[in-house]
């Protein structure tokens, strides 16, 4: 049995790694939304702040993007659920010889790269527009129309797959019975088939909206004057990232978790209620004294839901009364002190080195060029430039100057000649500069 428990242990280990890969990035991104540095980072932790959320809500382009995304999403949901339903119904009726071809055609958009779909939509509707002799500002070349059309091409396939799964369990005799009883075709559709399909239509609509909301590849070719949220985000991320984006991501993560837990809690409750009904005796059912399970009893999702809700309220509550000014000022003061201490240390070390070098030189005489690569007199200048090109110096900024300094001083002790380099270390300069502020 030892090998069995070893197997179990390794399974859990694997699961842990897997979910760390899956969820770790989201957790870290969420954490960066509350950290004060301008560049989103989780470590080193500086100050708890909520300013990125207010920065987010003041960003016109993001708000506009959200609005456009909702418009596009609504259009896409309507169009693709309708087409998906028609496509699914057609699949059950089509001439058997055509079925394989038809299925391949309607499933193909899922596999066609989004970029290709975007391009083909753009090119095709541009041509139609020209054929009809409409100008460049007609509704056909309007970003909203093109984006909805482009996204619906493949989202309708997703909807079709969801709807077909439910349609397979539909008994066609129900429709026939309705028709026999004198219903018109439209009535039979509306009163018999549609109520049966309702859950599947709801999940297809949610799926369609989510797919539309997060689509980038197709939209990037078709959006025109209606940049959706995804497009705005992509442009922001490509040209410099700020924690305001993390804040948006955090909001989306919380909403997602909330909806998922609510859904799960609801399903679980229905199951529990059904189980309780099944176990109940006839007497209990008739007297109406059946005790249905409590909302929270053995329903982990409901408990988690309430915990998340409480945490959210607590966070919002903290945000309204909390001010990070003191902490930010403290951090600045601390950085200033650190920088000063470092400058002092550098000065001291430089003085010591210089003294030692002077002593060595006095001993060695004119042998100075032999051991080290450059003469100490010019060495200071050279290494000063050398550090400018040090990649750490560029990325590091002043906050992790300690780390950078350690690295830049590592070669200096080895090379001997760059002891003077500290004076020209850009970090020291930028640190000195921030003193004045």
């Amino acid at each position, binding site marked *: 049995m030892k090998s069995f428990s070893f197997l179990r242990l390794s399974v859990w280990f694997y699961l842990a790694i897997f979910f760390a890969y899956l969820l770790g990035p989201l957790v870290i*991104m969420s954490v960066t939304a509350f950290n004060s540095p301008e560049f989103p980072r989780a470590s080193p932790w500086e100050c708890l702040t909520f300013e990125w959320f207010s920065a987010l809500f003041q960003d016109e382009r993001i708000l506009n993007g959200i609005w456009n995304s909702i418009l596009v999403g609504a259009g896409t949901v309507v169009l693709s659920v309708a087409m998906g339903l028609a496509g699914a119904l057609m699949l059950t009726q089509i001439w058997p010889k055509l079925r394989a071809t038809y299925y391949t055609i309607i499933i193909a958009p899922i596999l066609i790269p989004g*970029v290709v779909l975007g391009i083909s939509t753009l*090119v095709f509707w541009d041509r139609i527009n020209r054929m009809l002799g409409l100008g460049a500002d007609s509704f056909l070349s309007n970003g909203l129309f093109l984006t909805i059309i482009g996204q619906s091409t493949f989202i309708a396939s997703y909807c079709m797959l969801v709807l077909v799964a439910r349609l397979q369990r539909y008994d066609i005799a129900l429709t026939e019975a309705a028709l026999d009883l004198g219903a018109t*075709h*439209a009535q039979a559709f509306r009163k018999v088939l549609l109520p049966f399909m309702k859950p599947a239509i709801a999940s297809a609509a949610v799926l369609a909206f989510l797919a539309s909301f997060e689509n*980038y590849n197709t939209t990037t070719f078709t959006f025109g004057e209606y940049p959706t949220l995804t497009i705005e985000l992509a442009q922001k*991320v490509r040209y410099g990232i700020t924690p305001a984006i993390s804040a948006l991501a955090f909001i989306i*993560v919380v909403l997602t978790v909330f909806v998922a837990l609510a859904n799960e809690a609801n399903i679980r409750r229905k199951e529990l209620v059904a189980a309780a009904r099944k176990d109940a005796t006839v007497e209990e059912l008739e007297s109406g004294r059946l005790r249905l399970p409590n909302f929270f009893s053995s329903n982990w999702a409901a408990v988690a839901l309430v915990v998340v809700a409480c945490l959210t309220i607590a966070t919002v509550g903290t945000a309204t009364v909390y001010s990070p000014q003191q902490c930010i000022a403290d951090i600045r003061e601390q950085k200033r002190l650190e920088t000063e201490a470092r400058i002092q240390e550098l000065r001291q070390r430089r003085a010591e080195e210089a003294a030692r070098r002077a002593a060595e030189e006095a001993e060695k005489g004119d042998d100075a060029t032999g051991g080290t690569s450059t003469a100490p007199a010019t060495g200071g200048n050279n290494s000063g430039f050398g550090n400018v090109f040090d*990649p750490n110096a560029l990325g590091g900024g002043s906050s992790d100057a300690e780390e950078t300094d350690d690295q830049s001083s590592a070669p200096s002790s080895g090379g001997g000649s760059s002891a003077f380099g500290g004076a020209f270390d850009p970090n020291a300069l930028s640190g000195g500069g921030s003193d004045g502020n």
Partner: protein
Amino acid sequence: MPSFLKEFFKRNGVGMGSVMLGLVLFWTIGLIILPQLSMLDFSFRPNLPPPEIGGPKDVYTLENYKYLIYGPEGGSQDYNAVDLRVFFRTLVAAVCVTVFNLILCYPIAYYLAQTKGNHIRIFALMLIIPYWINEILRAFALRIIFGETGVLNNLLVGMGLFDTPFDFIRNDIALYAGLGYAYILLMIFPIYNVIESLDRNQIEAARDMGASWPMIHRRVVIPYAKPGISSGCTMVFMLSAGALAAPQILGGPSSLWFTQLIYQQFNDNSDWPQGAAYAVVLLVTCILLVLAIMRLFKVNMGDIGK
């Protein structure tokens, strides 16, 4: 009116029938077939300013495809080495991402499908939640982690594994991790669906006969899960070869993805026919590659999408 149409209308009623037929025709012909054909047609035309379209200069030409292979006319090189290299790199990298995802996801899918219990639902929820979050934001999250002063570098330097921060972005590690990350769910679900329907008794029987775990997987589970594996692999391969967001955000400054070339042709060079030609090349190559691999592993097209 042909008899099958008459039959169709009799079954669905004229009103409902025509709405249904109209929607299906609009979708299949208006949204799927014609745009693709139009793109194909467009890719064989020269890049002309709008007034000259349809004029005498608007003739079919192979110029755009030649450009991909030979580069600009009168160029210094015999072949368009830059674009071709990007093209092959994209294909090879997409295959690598697919294989990586398969290896990563197969055990998880197997575990989720063959284990019963409440915690499986929690796992399923944890799997799905990342996929409700925007593609761009997922790439952004990885960029925070892999950045030069990112969490991973701080960790590695802090642990003393590296003395200087490692540039994950320039070395494309961030890109591959991001692409793999983006499509995990698309690999897990098809495999999970198939393995879930595998009778546990088959595995028990194999174990009773003395088969080892690797043997059981090789002879029982994998042959059974082949349709799921192939549809997962197809989706991951097609989507990662056609990905645009992850390469734009996580790609190094010097390395391009083929879709980025297409994007540049459209948005920066305004050379639509050239972009369309590149898109056609990407689409056709990917389809051929998928078909060839499916032939190699003896999987039918009909199994995909089940």
